[in-house]
């Protein structure tokens, strides 16, 4: 169990996870990038700059 950097929710990361993989937090649906393994460290995946407005 790793902690989500956005919401502090518990994120279950597969054992064989690799750096740069993307996992999704079940709590807040954030896409998280695996920035380190053993121990796993997660960071918010880069935000897509969608500007839906004017």
């Amino acid at each position, binding site marked *: 169990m790793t902690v989500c950097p*956005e*919401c*502090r*929710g518990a994120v279950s990361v597969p054992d064989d996870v690799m750096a740069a993989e993307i996992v999704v937090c079940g*709590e*807040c*649906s*954030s*896409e998280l990038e695996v920035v380190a393994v053993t121990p796993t460290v997660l960071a*918010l*995946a880069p*935000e*897509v700059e*969608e500007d*839906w407005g004017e």
Partner: protein
Amino acid sequence: MKATVLGAAGYVGGELLRLALGHPGLEVVQATSRRHAGRPVGLVHPHLRHHAGLLFTEPDVLEPVDVLFSALPRGELARVHDQITSVARTVVDLGPDFRDPEGPGGAAYVTGLPELYRGALAGATRISVPGCMATAAAVAIRPLVAAGLTQDDVVVDARTGSSGAGGEPSRATHHPERQHAMRIYKATGHRHEREIARLCGVRARMTVTAVPLVRGVQVVAHLRPPRPVSRTEVWSAFRDAYADEPFVRLVAHRSGLHRLPDPQFLYGGNFVDLGFDVDDDGRRVVVVAALDNLVKGAAGGAVQSLNVAQGLEEQTGLDFPGLHPV
């Protein structure tokens, strides 16, 4: 349980009929309407046309029932309250008559908002469901007040669809005037400010806009925390409050099209979606709540509260999730 719906030809009444007809523990024995007594409910509520045998009845002859839902305009339930309590064991009011615990008769009623009053609702036989905007605002604001994340007043920007005004035609809801309206009909001094204050403990400085929707309430609250806060702190406050709530969903995505609560996906469902964002300097928290005013803001909140009061599974009869697209 045998059930009666008062004001069944109205919008809240129709929604109560839909939910009660689909609820395994409820049997509708009366649906009252003065104007439509004798006619099938489907003439007024076309989505219920297949219940051909269910006719409206006059409101003045009421059979004994286990539960009576009242969806009458302001003042009308109070007027006939003695008659009602003599025929119905449990009364659930969706109107404003008994919302204020300090108003006449109000002390006997428990607030029909399980997210805030679940304990008090167990076993209750008098339930008063809060207004739709107050429900949204209270769910949005109270956890942050509790967590000490706001100061003494909050700017509340409420947006409402046209069904919130009920089924009586007026120039304000005349289609040519309303279809494209962004009508700020109450910029200050809305009477629900008091109800919100009661439920949350802060002054709501409220501005209400009628928006081009039929269903839906969306509340955007702007809070100034006493010190800069982070997103994570706000997440914690909401998770602590609502982690186990069956009808509260936290919606605060950082990507995708639908990042914050939008009432369009809640039509017919009993969810209140809740999300937030924080200014870069941590000095403003924007909280957003959305719900369907006729469901979570009225008929669904009533059924949910009744389920709690009666010890039924809280989601009974409330499983429709909403639609996408709509």
